[in-house]
């Protein structure tokens, strides 16, 4: 009798615990969903503000060129190095399988298409998000918490135009340029990879790559890099510009800038593939 009562009580406690747990999970899901929707709404508003502001005077041309220099030129060593390694490693990884199928001579073709169409733009954009997205998020975040943005407004400057518009335009225009350079450097890495265990002349390698590529390979992948650049810039600026909670908030802004921008890059890439497919460019 005592054992039965004890078992019932234990069972009831277990059920109660389960119910509480389910409620907590439900509440967290609602909170997370609410947070996600709020964030999407706020980012959309930020984008609308950007689109309705960027073409209106006064133009912050000096700041725009400064940002192009910082974002573009200063990212070149990192983008170049990673691009070179990417091309080299991709070729070395691909070689054994290609040798097995007896199509070793097609390595430049496959590597060229893979780099130009997909790997080059996406990897460059991800590295760009890591370097530039975090730096914009942290810079604007620290400016926000140290009242520098307020100081700008008091000085008769529109901080949105000065800080956000110049940076977003610079990221949008610089990433395609960096991607082209990264693709070229990557292909040089691939050329080196081909020659580690084989022998192909530079001229033959490049002619194989260029012959394999068509308008449909180059243009869509080039266009999508503008959107990648825009995503990195707008998310970095949004997170930094709306940073709060002191120095902790600055760290979170930098981190969130990279995470959200990286996810967006993949989403844009997915959409780009679908659109080019629908338009018959694949």
């Amino acid at each position: 009798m005592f054992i039965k009562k004890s078992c019932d009580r234990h069972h009831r406690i277990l059920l109660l615990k389960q119910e509480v747990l389910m409620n907590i999970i439900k509440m967290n899901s609602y909170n997370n969903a609410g947070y996600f929707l709020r964030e999407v709404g706020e980012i959309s508003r930020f984008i609308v503000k950007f689109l309705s502001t960027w073409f209106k005077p006064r133009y912050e041309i000096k700041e725009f060129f400064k940002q192009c220099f910082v974002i573009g030129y200063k990212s070149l060593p990192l983008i170049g190095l990673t691009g070179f390694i990417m091309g080299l490693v991709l070729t070395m990884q691909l070689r054994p399988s290609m040798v097995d199928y007896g199509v070793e001579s097609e390595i430049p073709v496959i590597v060229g298409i893979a780099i130009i169409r997909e790997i080059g733009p996406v990897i460059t954009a991800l590295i760009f998000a890591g370097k530039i997205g975090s730096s914009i998020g942290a810079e604007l975040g620290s400016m926000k918490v140290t009242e520098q943005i307020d100081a700008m407004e008091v000085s008769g400057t529109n901080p949105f135009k000065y800080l956000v518009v110049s940076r977003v335009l610079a990221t949008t225009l610089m990433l395609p340029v960096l991607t082209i350079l990264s693709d070229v450097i990557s292909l040089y890495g691939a050329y080196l990879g081909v020659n580690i265990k084989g022998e192909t002349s530079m001229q033959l390698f490049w002619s194989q790559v260029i012959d394999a590529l068509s308008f449909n390979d180059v243009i869509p992948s080039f266009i999508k890099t503008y959107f990648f650049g825009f995503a990195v810039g707008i998310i970095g600026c949004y997170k930094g510009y709306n940073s709060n909670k002191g120095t902790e908030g600055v760290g979170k802004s930098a981190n969130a800038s990279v995470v959200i921008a990286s996810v967006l890059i993949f989403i844009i890439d997915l959409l780009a593939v679908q659109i080019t497919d629908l338009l018959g460019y694949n």
Partner: protein
Amino acid sequence: MSIEKINPVVLQVSNLKKRFGNNIVLDDFSFELHRNENIVVLGKSGSGKSVLIKCIIGLMKPDEGSIHILGKEISQMNAEELDKTRAKIGFLFQSNALYDSMTVRENLEFPLRRHWIKHNKSEMDQLIKQALADVKLTHTIDMMPSELSGGMRKRIALARTLILKPEIILYDEPTTGLDPITAKEIIQLINEIKIKYKTASLIISHDMNCVKLASDFVVMLIDGKCYAYDTYTNLKTNKDKNILQFFE
């Protein structure tokens, strides 16, 4: 506010109300600031002092009430008018708000470049050197803010505030975070600036030394209202326990 004053009113805050959710920060708050006068707004931390100063400069919008700066109501100004009025107001931020990525020279150049008041290179250089001389830091002109001490940063921020020769200066906790000697130097500078440029200053502070040395009049901000308005000496001898708590 029955004290007779000769100089004209440069800042008039009337029945200001500001709330954040259910929290009423400013409730029917009023006062006047005259030319060549230093008023210190004294209140506890979180009493709404910084909100008041941000409403005055237009960084926040009050829920009710009016703010007249040099005779013009700021809520009725468009962006251009607000910018022009802001050129006549200096704002010293609590955190100094110096631009980290710019040198001292560029920090001081920024407000000159931003406003439509056109200056050529030599005029700009002269104004920068004059502002730095006012705060006795001419040698720091090509240094970065990160190379400066806390007191020096405060002085440079003050120089940036002075560069447009403002008629009104708003100081947000000018001595917070400084050692007593540097704080005293900053207070001395505030007084020197008042004498030299005949500015009107609104100083937000809870540093009693600053209140004592820099104020012509003190406004006590308690529960969002202007609880008392008088000179430091008169307030110190007041028997009201809400006033006395600041002097104990």
